[in-house]
């Protein structure tokens, strides 16, 4: 078993922290994890990405040449990474982006799921937790973690005042897919 996950979006959307939460949660569950935070000039307001490899045995391929899961939180991120999806990959894409996608943006050989992450986060009271809605949806879809494990990690890594809304966002994401 091995999942190669790319989380992508715009700097400021919590892409890197989503990668950290997810990695820590997998790690606490006993999986082997290799996480890469890629940053370049794009760290300043452009697109950002986090790559998480999770497996039940030692990991030798340290870079993701082909992903089997992609989270796309912004349009530039979607267009940058859709080409790196393996055939049959799971693509979780922000629902608000769908209207902007043209025919040539779609791939027929992947499994695309729209996530109303922004809308859900705003309804919860803070658009910043859209990343956690995605993580909730992701763990439901790939089935490696239960939401309690992710919530435990949220409690470890996030300051108390923001824990509740992040936990709600994970649960909301888990239940919308």
């Amino acid at each position, binding site marked *: 078993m091995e999942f190669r996950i790319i989380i992508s979006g715009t700097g400021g959307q919590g892409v890197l922290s989503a990668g950290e939460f997810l990695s820590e949660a997998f*790690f606490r569950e006993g999986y082997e*994890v290799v996480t890469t935070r890629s940053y*370049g000039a794009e760290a300043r307001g452009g697109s950002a990405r986090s790559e998480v490899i999770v497996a039940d045995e030692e990991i030798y*391929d340290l870079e993701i040449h082909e992903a089997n899961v992609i989270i796309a939180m912004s349009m530039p991120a979607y267009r940058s990474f859709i080409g790196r999806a393996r055939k049959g990959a799971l693509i979780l894409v922000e629902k608000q982006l769908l209207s902007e996608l043209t025919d040539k943006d779609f791939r027929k050989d992947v499994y695309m799921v729209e996530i109303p992450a922004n809308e859900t986060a705003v309804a919860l009271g803070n658009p910043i937790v859209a990343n956690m809605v995605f993580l909730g949806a992701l763990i439901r879809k790939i089935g490696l973690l239960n939401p309690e494990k992710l919530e435990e990690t949220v409690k470890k890594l996030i300051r108390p005042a923001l824990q509740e809304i992040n936990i709600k966002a994970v649960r909301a994401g888990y239940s919308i897919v």
Partner: protein
Amino acid sequence: MLKAGKHLVLGNVACAEGAIRAGCRFFAGYPITPANEISHHMSIELPKVGGFYLQMEDEIASISAVLGASWAGAKAMTATSGPGFSLMQEGISYAHMTETPCVVVDVQRSGPSTGQATMPSQMDVYQAKYGAHGDYEVVALVPWSVQEMFDLTIRAFNLAEKFRTPVLLMADGVIGHIMEKLVIPEQVEIVDRRRCSSREAMPFGTDDPSRVPEMPLFGEGYRLIVTGSTHRESGFRDESPKYHAMLVKRIREKILKAESEISDSVGYYLEDPKIVVISYGATARPSFGAVKKARKGGLEAGLFRLRTLWPFPDREIRRLAEAAEKLIVVEMNSGKILREVERASRGCSEVLSLPKIGGVLHSVDEIYKAIMEAYQ
């Protein structure tokens, strides 16, 4: 400092954690990607253990401050990448000549010059060996995992202290910037420099078979002179051919005679190898994956992984060249250690190169394909 136990951390953080456990209490550096997390972590953690963190005006000042701190008795370190490593070369040469223990970490990125500044490479491996001017012998370690960023940083300090020499940790931007498992033990083995046992001890000469002199420190009452110019055992300048030859011979021999103790490599599946992949650092990871895959398919492939680049394991490479049909050198540069392998194998087997530039790491499948092609 992280507690003993299992953690998910960045390679660079593991390096800083290892340094502090090895006894490092002084860090001076100048910011550069992809080494910054080492400085950052040191700036937070060193003051908590009574150590000092200095951000200097550049890399020349950084290495100089490290050497000064070492002579004041601290275990000292700096961390940088390509362009900064170039600037430090003069200081590293001074460290060789003055026999100053210190650790220099180069988290290699892709050059020449500012090249692909945020992307990884293994392009400085020859700079580690030949970058500084003069006659000297280099000790350079190379980690392939976050765990080894921790373990080999500790070893770098121990070797620096034992042999009174600068030690280089030639990490790469891949290993510095991945997060993976680090297991911190309750205790680590630590070596401290031999301090002067008497007023008569010579700071730059010894009868000891190790050829490593005892080290006095500034501030302890010794009349001490430290100079990069050729000096007698006492430290006083004497640039005569006799003293220069004596000094340079000794500082080279203290490393050369201990080569078997310092040199460190790991072999995998080398019982009956037809094809041996030779690699180090990040590229050894997909190499290992590829060799395992080849073994599953019944191919007699093995991996020889360098954990010290310098001293270079000439004898082991020669033995592999005699036993195997082909050697494949996998590295993230345009083919450098390749030349060392060609030299050491002395034509006993065919040496193939699988270089990679562009700031991207080899995949398991790429290396597997090269093994298959070599096999046919």
